[in-house]
């Protein structure tokens, strides 16, 4: 923060939120103060005890504010951790030695996996190119898998009773082989858990007799949901990678408390909330990074009264989009991570491998420019000599065009070499295409932006909406550079670029609710014109599931000392017309369902939602209804980051914010761009094209045909001034 006189204010700064992103090589720390301003610190990740790297990283961040960890931590209201240690453990197959018990005859199902797992995470061209497909080694090898005889069919009927005498020998064999945990996953156990629970109890009994202290994970206790591969994978991850990571999290929690922190650290979870490190289902903290931005978008939307939002995030490697509709994001119930299909609720996002670090190449056969899908990531591009990159990236084109200030990248922490970028773009791109270096680099930016624009448009229109109904939030380190390019002509209701765009994901993590979400698969079928008794039974089946899940939510919060009365519960159900393939997740208008009339309220709410999502004319009550799942979300109040609030200071930006002009190549000619310092602009300031608004972590471009106005919350609104 800079005062009118330009001197730094250090003592009055109030650190509010700590967000930690512990990556495989570097740990990033974001500290947010009560003005929404943040500092970023970096330090090497210290595997084994991540808290060491974390404290170094926090200390590094705080040097920008002339503070120490001991000054800052006691002021903090809350802290959220997200890390990739668990993911790395999984991807590098360095998890616990897990034994698996499945149905006899099904011992190979985990090893074989689903065909899609052989190409998950691949580019479109590689998906079509069979030679690239590969099955990763299974988390549990065949040797450590045992079968027991039993069968429950998909309706939950016992078809073959459990052969109880087979369980103990299976457990003993696994123990003899030295497994460190046992996972049980039987067919259709989500529908009827008796056999799986019985196997679990016998296994625990056998372990006790053997004097072996091994944890046992029954899928039904964790993820009682349909789809065998997904449920088995997820339960195995719980035993293989998640549970062993708990100690890491406890250490982090202990260390920050030793430095004066007065809160329990929470972990970002896939469903868009944060959970305690004591949570039963820890595997859902596997994913973290990109969803932070969506959570932040939802939070900011609530604060500003915007209900429909397109969140768009450009980082170094990808462009991620998520829709917030009527104030809520969509949940994908069977996502994939680390090339495994899973049954975790994940905030639905669409990603395309195009970011500022994406490699730029010329297809040797068609002579066309190809972007990505791979990228230089944190190594920026050829312009960053120390990065050791030889193939040009989108960032190199930015440098060539003059859009990025090579001396002020990441606040000058990294010096970029314009001449190096220029030569590389000339050799690799301009000369082969017979273009001038600037024209070639501009072509890359245009191509990228038109790809992003098409992608954004198809995503919004493909879901049946029009961009005019949405506000577009643009953030991420590379977002504001391209915002104008990718929203041009789409007609969004508003385009918002927060001044803290680069730290928006961390802001989002800090803004996440302390929330548990539990899902359970159901198959409640109610025909059109069903009797009162049938509808009443359907309602009570759903209610039983809600009760069961509510109990799980309460148990989790009790671990952190919250009372039942502190917990706000929200009940959801997934419903579809009988025979249709897609269900909708709907918040229940009622807190309990016991009568036929109350059931009718649920179907009426479904009809409304269906009409809104698809079309009113497509509603088909004559098909009858199916409830496919029950969901309970419970949250407690936690401090959230404050959205900055500043007095209106008029349209004319202060002269102190003006940093002169720089020559920029744009659309066939060199023009003078006004350079503004983002931090020095005041609420109400109107910035006209051509302008480049710089801050240490991001660059915001206002090209011809656009203007940007900073509001009182330090959010820029980008407006199109001329039609195109």
């Amino acid at each position: 923060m800079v005062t009118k006189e330009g001197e730094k204010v250090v003592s009055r700064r109030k650190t509010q939120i700590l967000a930690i992103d512990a990556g495989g090589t570097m740990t990033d720390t974001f500290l947010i103060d009560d003005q929404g301003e943040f500092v970023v610190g970096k330090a090497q990740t210290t595997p084994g005890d991540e808290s060491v790297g974390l404290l170094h990283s926090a200390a590094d961040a705080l040097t920008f504010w002339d503070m120490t960890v001991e000054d800052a931590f006691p002021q903090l209201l809350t802290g959220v951790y997200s890390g990739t240690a668990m993911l790395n453990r999984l991807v590098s197959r360095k998890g616990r030695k897990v034994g698996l018990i499945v149905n006899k005859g099904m011992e190979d199902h985990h090893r074989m996996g689903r065909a899609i797992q052989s190409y998950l995470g691949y580019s479109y061209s590689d998906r079509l190119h069979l030679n690239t497909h590969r099955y990763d080694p299974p988390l549990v090898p065949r040797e450590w898998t045992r079968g027991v005889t039993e069968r429950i069919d998909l309706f939950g009927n016992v078809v073959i009773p459990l052969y109880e005498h087979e369980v103990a020998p299976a457990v003993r064999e696994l123990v003899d082989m030295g497994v460190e945990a046992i996972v049980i996953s039987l067919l259709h156990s989500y529908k009827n858990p008796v056999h799986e629970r019985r196997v679990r109890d016998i296994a625990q009994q056998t372990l006790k007799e053997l004097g072996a202290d091994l944890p046992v994970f029954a899928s039904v206790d964790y993820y009682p949901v349909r789809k065998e591969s997904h449920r088995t994978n997820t339960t195995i991850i719980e035993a293989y990678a998640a549970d062993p990571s708990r100690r890491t999290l406890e250490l982090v929690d202990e260390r920050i408390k030793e430095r004066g922190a007065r809160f329990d650290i929470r972990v970002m979870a896939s469903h868009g909330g944060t959970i305690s490190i004591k949570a039963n289902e820890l595997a859902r903290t596997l994913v973290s990074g990109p969803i932070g931005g969506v959570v932040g978008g939802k939070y900011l939307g609530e604060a500003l009264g915007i209900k429909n939002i397109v969140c768009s995030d450009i980082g170094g490697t990808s462009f991620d989009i998520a829709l917030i509709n009527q104030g809520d994001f969509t949940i994908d119930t069977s996502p994939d991570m680390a090339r495994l299909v899973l049954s975790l609720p994940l905030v639905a996002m669409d990603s395309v491998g195009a970011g500022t670090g994406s490699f730029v190449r010329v297809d040797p056969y068609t002579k066309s420019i190809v972007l990505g899908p791979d990228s230089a990531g944190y190594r920026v591009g050829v312009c960053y000599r120390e990065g050791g990159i030889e193939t040009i990236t989108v960032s190199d084109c930015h440098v060539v065009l003059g859009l990025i200030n090579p001396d002020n990248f990441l606040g000058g922490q990294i010096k970029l070499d314009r001449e190096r970028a220029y030569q590389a773009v000339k050799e690799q791109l301009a000369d082969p295409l017979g273009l001038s270096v600037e024209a070639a680099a501009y072509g890359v930016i245009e191509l990228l932006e038109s790809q992003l624009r098409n992608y954004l448009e198809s995503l919004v229109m493909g879901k049946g909406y029009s961009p005019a109904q949405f506000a577009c939030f643009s953030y991420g380190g590379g977002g504001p550079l391209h915002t104008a390019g990718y929203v041009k002509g789409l007609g969004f209701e508003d385009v918002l670029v927060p001044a803290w765009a680069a730290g928006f994901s961390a802001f989002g993590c800090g803004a996440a609710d302390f929330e548990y979400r539990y899902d359970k698969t159901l198959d409640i079928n109610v025909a059109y014109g069903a009797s009162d008794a049938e509808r009443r039974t359907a309602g009570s089946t759903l209610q039983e599931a809600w009760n069961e899940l509510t109990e799980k939510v309460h148990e989790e919060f009790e671990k952190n000392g919250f009372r039942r009365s502190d917990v706000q519960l929200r009940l959801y159900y997934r419903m579809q017309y009988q025979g249709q393939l897609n269900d909708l997740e709907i918040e229940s208008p009622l807190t309990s369902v016991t009568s036929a009339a109350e059931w009718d309220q649920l179907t009426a709410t479904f009809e409304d939602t269906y009409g809104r999502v698809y079309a009113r004319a497509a509603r088909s009550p004559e098909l009858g209804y199916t409830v496919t799942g029950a969901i309970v979300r419970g949250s407690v109040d936690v401090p959230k980051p404050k959205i900055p609030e500043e007095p209106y200071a008029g349209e004319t930006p202060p002269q102190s914010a003006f940093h002169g002009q720089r020559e920029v190549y744009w659309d066939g000619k060199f023009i003078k761009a006004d350079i503004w310092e983002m931090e020095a602009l005041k609420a109400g300031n109107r910035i006209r094209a051509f302008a480049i608004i710089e801050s240490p972590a991001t660059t915001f471009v206002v090209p011809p045909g656009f203007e940007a106005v900073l509001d009182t919350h330090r959010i820029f609104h980008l407006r199109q001034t001329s039609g195109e």
Partner: protein
Amino acid sequence: MANYDKATIEELIDGTIDFFKLKEMLSSFKDPGRFDTYLEILQERVKWDDRILLPYGLHLYVVQKMDGKRVIKCDCGHEFCEAHENWKLNALIYVRDTDSQLQELYPALLAPDPQWQIIREYYCPTCATQLEVEAVTPWYPIIHDFEPDIDGFYEEWLGRPVPQPVEK
């Protein structure tokens, strides 16, 4: 554009390459120097001096003789025929067309019915290396796998004329 060193291409030829390296190669545009490096390695590995114009299959090459003829040649030096002809007609052929012969290859009950499908194995008459196997209906003519347009390949893809024989 990617460029791989000779050791990597040798691993590729031998099938010992690490999968992730292979995946990276498969997903990238082909490196411009690949063909020449590949040929160089093959040429070093054979004991004879004829110049290899094109790899033809496992153990087989199209080579250039001093009189300009293009001949299909085995690792061991056995020469089959000219490049436009079907070398299989000059190979030793073992036909599996009875149940017992087919069952030597397959687990119980999984062998094809020889009335519908037979297996023909082609061997080099000099070194007895198995060079090719085809699974066809019994009446099917011997398949001519590959008739390369060597001039077209050199001139239009590599952008240079086919090398001419030189006295050593």
